[in-house]
């Protein structure tokens, strides 16, 4: 299978030969940083236009179609507008925290990008506790949101932030448990190992019903964790105007907006990695010729295809369901999802110990 590892090693070898080791490392940092930021910007633009097109398709209308061919430059135009806008800081706000909050949220989403394998042999940081790292860092973003809500000195913001805090902390548990049920099968937290363990089939298909249950719970929980409808209580438009980012404008608002979309991408990428084999092509057991044909499709297409499929699912939810109420939201987590995923984890452990999976 085509691997990008040769490219990455080539770059590294050349850097090490040309520069002293410290400089080589620093230059690598810079390259990775530029790539990450570029990916960020590109993803933000693509996801926003995708959301609007999906929404238009569901809502029997056309969506953006004026700027550029089929309106694909609409989000670029919007971004330029947001950059030009004045970034207001309200009088009563805590200026330091108010301006810090969007960056915290943004940096957190950037950090989570590190261990994700985008293609075969192409990831920023091949860390052996990748999944743990992701779930640890992703819980930091709630601090940014709480900070934004508190520092805005606005009651709508405060309510939105409190809701968001309660929601993200609770749904983290379900995400963690459903991730854990795959970890039990792979026996490794390394994202690369998890992908490789799905060489003869994706975990969603290999591990019977428990895997499907944990996949469903995972999708529900990540929708809630990224504050997307039907769990978008933290920015419930009809209740709290815009929730925690009511007072933000211009680029500071754009950072929240962007990080929301990047978070969606990241959680979907994690989901695709754990349940749908990441960059691993669709393989069926020992069907050598079939597997071989599938290998011809490049691995990054598999990765982005799966991720965007999951993103589409989440967008589909948003434009179909009404919003839950705050107590129903917490009931759903603590009374249904958490017990189910705990039992599911035990069943999955049994499956893993007995080796019942394929």
């Amino acid at each position, binding site marked *: 299978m085509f691997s990008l590892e040769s490219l990455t090693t080539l770059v590294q070898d050349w850097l090490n030969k040309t520069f002293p080791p410290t400089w080589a490392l620093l230059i690598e940092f810079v390259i990775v940083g530029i790539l990450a930021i570029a990916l960020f910007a590109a993803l933000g633009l693509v996801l926003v236009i995708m959301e609007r097109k999906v*929404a238009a398709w*569901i*809502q*029997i*209308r056309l969506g953006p179609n004026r700027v550029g061919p089929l309106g694909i430059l609409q989000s670029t135009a919007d971004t330029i507008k947001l950059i030009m806008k004045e970034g207001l800081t309200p009088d009563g706000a805590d200026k330091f925290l108010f301006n810090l909050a969007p960056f915290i949220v943004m940096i957190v989403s950037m950090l989570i990008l590190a261990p994700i394998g985008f293609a075969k042999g192409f990831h920023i940081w091949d860390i052996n506790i990748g999944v743990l790292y992701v779930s640890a860092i992703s819980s930091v973003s709630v601090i940014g949101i709480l900070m934004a809500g508190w520092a805005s000195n606005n*009651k*709508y913001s405060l*309510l939105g932030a409190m*809701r968001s805090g309660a929601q993200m902390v609770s749904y983290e548990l379900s995400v963690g448990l459903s991730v854990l049920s795959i970890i039990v099968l792979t026996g490794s937290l390394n994202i690369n190992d998890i992908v490789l363990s799905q060489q003869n089939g994706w975990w969603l298909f290999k591990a019977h019903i428990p895997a499907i249950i944990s996949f469903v719970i995972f999708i529900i929980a990540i929708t809630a964790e990224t504050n997307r*409808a*039907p769990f*978008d*209580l933290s920015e*419930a*438009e*009809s*209740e*709290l*105007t815009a929730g925690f980012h009511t007072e933000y404008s211009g680029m500071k608002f754009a950072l929240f907006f962007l990080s929301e979309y990047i978070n969606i991408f990241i959680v979907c990428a994690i989901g695709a990695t754990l349940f749908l084999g990441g960059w691993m092509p669709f393989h069926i057991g020992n069907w050598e010729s079939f597997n071989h044909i599938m290998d011809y499709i490049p691995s990054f297409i598999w990765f982005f295809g799966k991720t965007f499929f999951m993103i589409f699912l989440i967008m589909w939810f948003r*434009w*179909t*369901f*009404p*919003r*839950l*109420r*705050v*107590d*129903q939201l917490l009931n759903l987590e603590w009374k249904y999802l958490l017990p189910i995923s705990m039992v599911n984890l035990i069943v999955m452990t049994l499956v893993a110990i007995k080796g019942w999976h394929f």
Partner: protein
Amino acid sequence: MVEEIGKTAEGDLIINVGPQHPATHGVLHLIITLNGETIKKVEPHLGYIHRSIEKMCESLTYRQFIYTTSRMDYLSAHINNHACALTVEKGLGIEIPARAQVIRVLMDELTRIASHELWWGAMAMDLGAFTPFFHAFRERETINDIMEETCGARLTMNYMVPGGVMMDLHPNFQYRVKNFLTLYKRKIHEYDELVTGNIIFQNRMKGVGVLSKEAAISFGVTGPAARGSGVSCDVRKLYPYEIYNTLEFDEILETEGDSFARYMVRLREMNESIKIIEQLIDNIPEGDFQAKTKAVLKLPKGEFYQRVETARGELGVYIVSEGGTTPYRIKFRSPGFSNLSCLDHITRGGKIGDLIASMGTLDLVIPDIDR
């Protein structure tokens, strides 16, 4: 009362919902007292869109004042105009031609459907679902097109005049209405699939904002909001005007009194309106569309009252005449004002989300409340 901005003496949070707020659909201002997310008190503040329509009417003639009423409850403009025209006709003792009566009822029912369609979309949007709004507008647009063709306007039609209607039906009218009926019947099941049957929606609506029958009567709630609590109050049935007593339709009653009951009443009411339109659309009698009236109308000295059923409830028009060309005093009993008064009662103890859901099912139109 509000002592310090933001806090009560007990330390509860006070939030201004409105006058500009996405959920109030207009310039309604609610001051809500919150304990956490739980609502302790809702205090509506009115007057942001008060245009003193009643006072304005006193200086307008009996032909002119009807046009201002399109701006009250703009979603049932036809029905408002109808009520005023009926009151003036009552005072003058004019007989309306049969054709005009049928046209009026047809227009009323089309307006009712259009209004309920908009309510359905807007209410779903309050609950966070955006898609139903566009689905509702797909059907509503066809009604607006019919109105545009016949009346020349899409929202404030000003079609009803004392003595009948302003002009005859457009030749396309029957064809268009039949098209609408087919479209509606083909699409109405989507409403149930998309919203009514949704488990999240049902959880948000059932048992929320409960208005008991007694409370509904004592607050003076009328229309679908009261019929959701089991109060039989359909003016078309109880005090029939025009040709409603010859038509076959049911008064929709639900007994639960919660938001879901009010929702179901409106959905089922649309089907009743469709039934009425179906009975009439092929039986529009030939003849005049307007009775012969004098150029200058003068109501005899006295008091005249007429009530009709708008999409939101009972609209009463009360005219006091001194015998001149303009009314001495006009009073509108608007359904929205009384329906709003029960908001505090039904939302106390609920969450903010419940307030929005209950307000959505009351179907408030703010210019109707303020006038």
